[in-house]
């Protein structure tokens, strides 16, 4: 390495993306997050245009501009795009951009996963959009209620596009959720205990965990519905013991937390901006944290309020009604903390604050109608009317889009290094604010006058005419506002005044990265002793980039972060992360190929592609951890006065990533178990499942192999922890062999079982359970097989005990679901 280069140039050499096409191999969080936000904006524009088409069709009674068929595609795609391709990804993008900078680190902890997530999002989005271009888009509404979306009533590929495409996009959401959780918990600046963490990070931590738990029910539901459509497994068909309401439960089990997944980061933006413009710390930090946690929990207990008209038992309706109302409490606690912060501060009224006010008005209005809708008898009247349409646009646009735009203006200087101005920004705000209210305020009345949602047109004389005209007119004003907003932001990149350091006098660390930021954010990583580092330690401005703090060596060429304790922020280890890589792009391309081949029902191709995908993913796994191209053991690493590299420990980020991923996986499994029990006990055609077609004794033998394998594996890990490494390779081989025995007996009993999964929903669920088990057992076994090789290569050893510690929770998970399945799927029905 050239010693003449300044430290900054040396860091840039290690951290910068490859030039030209090499940008596609970028894994850096700033680059990836920008792509997320840019792509999200494009999808927002497309979704907005679809919305305008809907409003055009509804402007006058009995119009025939748009056919009912196209209209159904439009409202389905409008909702789908706005929810899945705009709201979630753009907020994840914002979080990915800000979180590492706010917690004082250089990157997210699994950079290649960020890139994979982005490409899955992009390709999934493109696949879904293609269906719209071809005129075969999904057309059963964005919540895809079956049986309308089933093969019988939607024989075209529209539903498949939705199910496969959205599942593909959700991989991206869940991977971002895992990554943000682990990053926030394990890579905060030394000294930054949870209670010193910027409030925004609490919001994102809650959002990320909610994604981890909340998305799997929908992923499972999509898999089940796709299996029903493609393979005839009748999960939702009452004639074969299924139930269409199971879909609704699984969908809203995801769908309601999703609303808070969208709201929380936006509220986090509000809680960040208001103190800065009030010139004082957020009052009631603890109140807010409490509110966030309460909200996260309650939001998983109120999904049934989307289903008050399906005829579920009254007591359940009352429970979910009250739970839905209770969520108003943590929400209003936040609103009043914001008011108290403004109250006790000295307020500067800049452009972001204008958006905060717009947010407050619209969101409180939407929240109030939300409480109204939680009242069951009122919901019986207005459910599925334009009142609900108005309500959720108030909540989503008010609760998510307004804070987001406020946040965009607030962080624009960070992205561009230039300041936004009031001139055009003010106009854009008022156009959007007035246009929005013109569109949606009186739409409540439209709903009260009885206009259902999703009707393609309406007859004159029902009192709806002028209201629809007003809404359509308002939506065009709003569209002009968005046009002006985008123009303002684009122009600002070119003509905006150069921003000075920390232009809004903020307290959080992201403003110390330089505007625009360098690829490594911080040249040296400071210790943080306060919740408001830039207010209380203004010298950080220069000391960070002078290299006065930790982890400033770069001659080794590794990208490094500090790993700290999840609660106290005590410095634990140095985390080395991979640099740019083509694997994410290639893996995502292969997965996109898989998605397309499933869409076109070319199952032979799909199998071939799955094999290729497996190879790519195992290649990825192979060049990971302590592999010599990632982090070879060198002498310098012990001599520079920094803690150990994480791959020399047994508690690095990989272990955390594995555990958080398994939480998500567990949520998927519990959804499956819920479906099984639901079909058995709640579905109208439900009866005790007949499970005699699966051999219980064979299953028990298979389980015995698995249990022995896991016990042995645990023993290896325990010995590694005690630095005992005799016969390591042989022991891994033994676990591998036992895993193979378990797997082959499981495969045998699955193929030998006499499951009629096309005729019976119970058998279909049992079959999915077996496949789920085989999938996990296979991954555990193959990975252990690879570990045998890695021991021989020297990537697992006395000083490199890391990788078994990462795989250990996976084995335990595989074992747990095996015996839970054994009990609940096989034993209980037998002895019932």
């Amino acid at each position, binding site marked *: 390495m050239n010693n003449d280069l300044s430290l900054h140039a040396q860091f840039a050499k290690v951290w910068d993306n490859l030039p030209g096409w090499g940008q596609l191999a970028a894994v850096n969080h700033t680059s990836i997050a920008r792509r997320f936000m840019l792509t999200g904006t494009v999808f927002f524009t497309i979704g907005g245009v679809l919305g305008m088409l809907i409003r055009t069709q509804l402007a006058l009674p009995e119009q025939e501009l748009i056919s009912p068929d196209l209209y159904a595609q439009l409202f389905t795609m409008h909702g789908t795009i706005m929810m899945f391709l705009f709201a979630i990804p753009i907020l994840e993008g914002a979080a990915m951009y800000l979180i590492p900078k706010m917690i004082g680190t250089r990157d997210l902890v699994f950079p290649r996963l960020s890139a994979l997530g982005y490409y899955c999002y992009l390709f999934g989005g493109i696949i879904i959009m293609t269906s719209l271009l071809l005129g075969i888009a999904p057309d059963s509404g964005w919540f895809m209620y079956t049986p309308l979306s089933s093969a019988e009533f939607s024989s075209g590929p529209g539903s498949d596009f939705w199910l496969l495409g959205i599942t593909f996009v959700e991989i991206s959401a869940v991977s971002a959720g895992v990554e943000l959780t682990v990053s926030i918990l394990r890579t905060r600046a030394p000294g930054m205990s949870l209670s010193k963490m910027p409030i925004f990070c609490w919001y994102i931590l809650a959002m990320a965990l909610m994604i981890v738990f909340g998305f799997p029910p929908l992923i499972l539901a999509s898999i089940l519905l796709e299996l029903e459509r493609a393979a005839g497994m009748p999960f939702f068909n009452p004639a074969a013991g299924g139930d269409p309401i199971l879909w609704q439960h699984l969908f809203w089990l995801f769908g309601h937390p999703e609303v808070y997944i969208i709201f929380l980061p936006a509220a986090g933006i509000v809680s960040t901006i208001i103190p800065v413009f009030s010139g004082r710390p957020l009052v009631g930090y603890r*109140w807010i944290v409490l509110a966030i946690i309460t909200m996260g929990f309650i939001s998983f207990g109120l999904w049934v309020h989307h289903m008050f008209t399906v005829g579920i038992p009254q007591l359940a309706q009352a429970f979910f009604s009250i739970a839905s109302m209770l969520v108003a409490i943590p929400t209003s606690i936040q609103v009043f903390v914001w008011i108290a912060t403004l109250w006790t501060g000295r307020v500067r009224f800049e452009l972001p604050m204008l958006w905060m006010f717009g947010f407050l008005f619209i969101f409180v209005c939407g929240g109030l109608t939300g409480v109204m809708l939680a009242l069951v008898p009122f919901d019986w009247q207005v459910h599925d009317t334009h009142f609900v349409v108005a309500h959720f646009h108030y909540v989503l646009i008010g609760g998510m889009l307004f804070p987001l735009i406020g946040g965009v203006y607030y962080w624009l200087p960070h992205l561009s290094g230039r300041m936004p101005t009031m001139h055009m920004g003010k106009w854009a705000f008022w156009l959007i604010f007035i246009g929005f209210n013109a569109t949606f305020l009186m739409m409540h009345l439209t709903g009260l006058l009885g206009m259902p949602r999703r009707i393609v047109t309406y007859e004159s004389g029902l*009192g709806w005419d002028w209201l629809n005209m007003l809404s359509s007119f308002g939506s065009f004003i709003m569209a002009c506002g968005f046009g002006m907003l985008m123009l303002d932001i684009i122009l600002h990149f070119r003509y905006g005044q150069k921003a000075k350091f920390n232009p809004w006098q903020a307290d959080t660390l992201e403003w110390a990265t330089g505007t625009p930021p360098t690829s490594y954010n911080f040249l040296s990583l400071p210790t943080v002793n306060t919740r408001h580092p830039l207010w209380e330690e203004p010298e950080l401005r220069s000391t960070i980039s002078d290299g006065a703090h930790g982890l400033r060596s770069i001659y080794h060429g590794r990208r490094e972060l500090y790993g700290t304790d999840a609660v106290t922020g005590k410095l634990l280890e140095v985390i080395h992360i991979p640099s740019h890589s083509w694997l994410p792009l290639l893996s995502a391309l292969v997965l996109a190929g898989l998605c397309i081949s499933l869409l076109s029902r070319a199952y032979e191709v799909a199998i071939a592609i799955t094999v290729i995908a497996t190879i790519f993913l195992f290649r990825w796994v192979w060049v990971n951890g302590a592999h010599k191209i990632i982090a070879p053991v060198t002498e310098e690493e012990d001599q520079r006065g920094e803690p150990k590299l994480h791959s020399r420990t047994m508690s690095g980020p990989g272990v955390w990533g594995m555990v958080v991923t398994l939480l998500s996986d567990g949520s998927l499994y519990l959804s499956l178990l819920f479906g099984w029990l639901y079909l058995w006990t709640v579905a109208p055609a439900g009866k005790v499942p007949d499970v005699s077609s699966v051999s219980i004794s064979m299953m028990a033998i298979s389980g015995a192999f698995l249990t022995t394998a896991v016990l042995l594996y645990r023993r290896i890990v325990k010995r590694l922890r005690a630095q005992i490494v005799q016969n390591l390779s042989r022991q891994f081989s033994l676990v591998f062999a036992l895993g193979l025995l378990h797997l082959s007996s499981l495969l045998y009993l699955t193929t030998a079982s006499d499951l009629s999964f096309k005729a019976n929903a119970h058998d279909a669920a049992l079959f999915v359970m077996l496949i789920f088990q085989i999938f996990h057992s296979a991954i555990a076994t193959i990975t252990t097989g690879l570990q045998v090789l890695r021991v021989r290569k020297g990537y697992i050893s006395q000083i490199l005990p890391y990788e078994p510690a990462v795989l250990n929770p996976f084995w335990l998970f595989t074992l747990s679901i095996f015996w839970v399945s054994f009990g609940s799927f096989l034993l209980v029905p037998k002895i019932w």
Partner: protein
Amino acid sequence: MVNRLRKLSLFAIVLSLVGCNGRYSILDPAGPHAEAIMWIWWGMFTVGTIVLIGVCSLWWYAIRKSHKNYTENESKRVTNRLVVIGGIGLPVVCITALLAFGIPAGHSMLPWPNEKVIIVNVHARQWFWEVSYPNQGIQLTDEIFIPAGVPVDIHVTSEDVIHSFWVPRLSGKIDAIPGRTNILRLQGDKPGSYGGQCAEYCGLAHTKMKFEVNVMPENEYENWVTQHGMKKGARE
């Protein structure tokens, strides 16, 4: 009954003046369930508007009021007071009031056992409604006849996809779901014809899936049943 009718028609006049009437208007009720929900709505609307204006004004005042330096303790006190009164007290009071009115109202709409009740089966299909009176042996399509002032239980089922049975001026809606039978209690107090429509998107002709509920005076209804029930009997 007569008193209620008078009250209702008076209210209807006021509503038509402000544009709240209409064939499908929730705000122009013609039966006890829809009326109860309408009153709940107006109550919620009033409280909601006050809360909205109150919160926004408070926010505006907090921004605009002349600045004063608060000590750490003072700002803690301001915060706790605002959060406890506004953040917890306000929603708790509102929710309690809402439930106090809402639960009894909802309770009164449920299909409790009632000797007088008339049963009508409604079977939804893409895209029409098959109506049958199991006890009277009458079959109809897209129209229902019921007597005024008598509770009617609509047993809703579906042939194909999910639909939703809704007569806004009489009562709330209930979904028609394949594999299930849902019951909705309806009652019309004023004779007349009331529009019903499918409220759950059910495919291409969802928009056109409408029906009509004719509420007739009780004696006229008896006549109608004798006539049509007879006819059917004669056919058999």
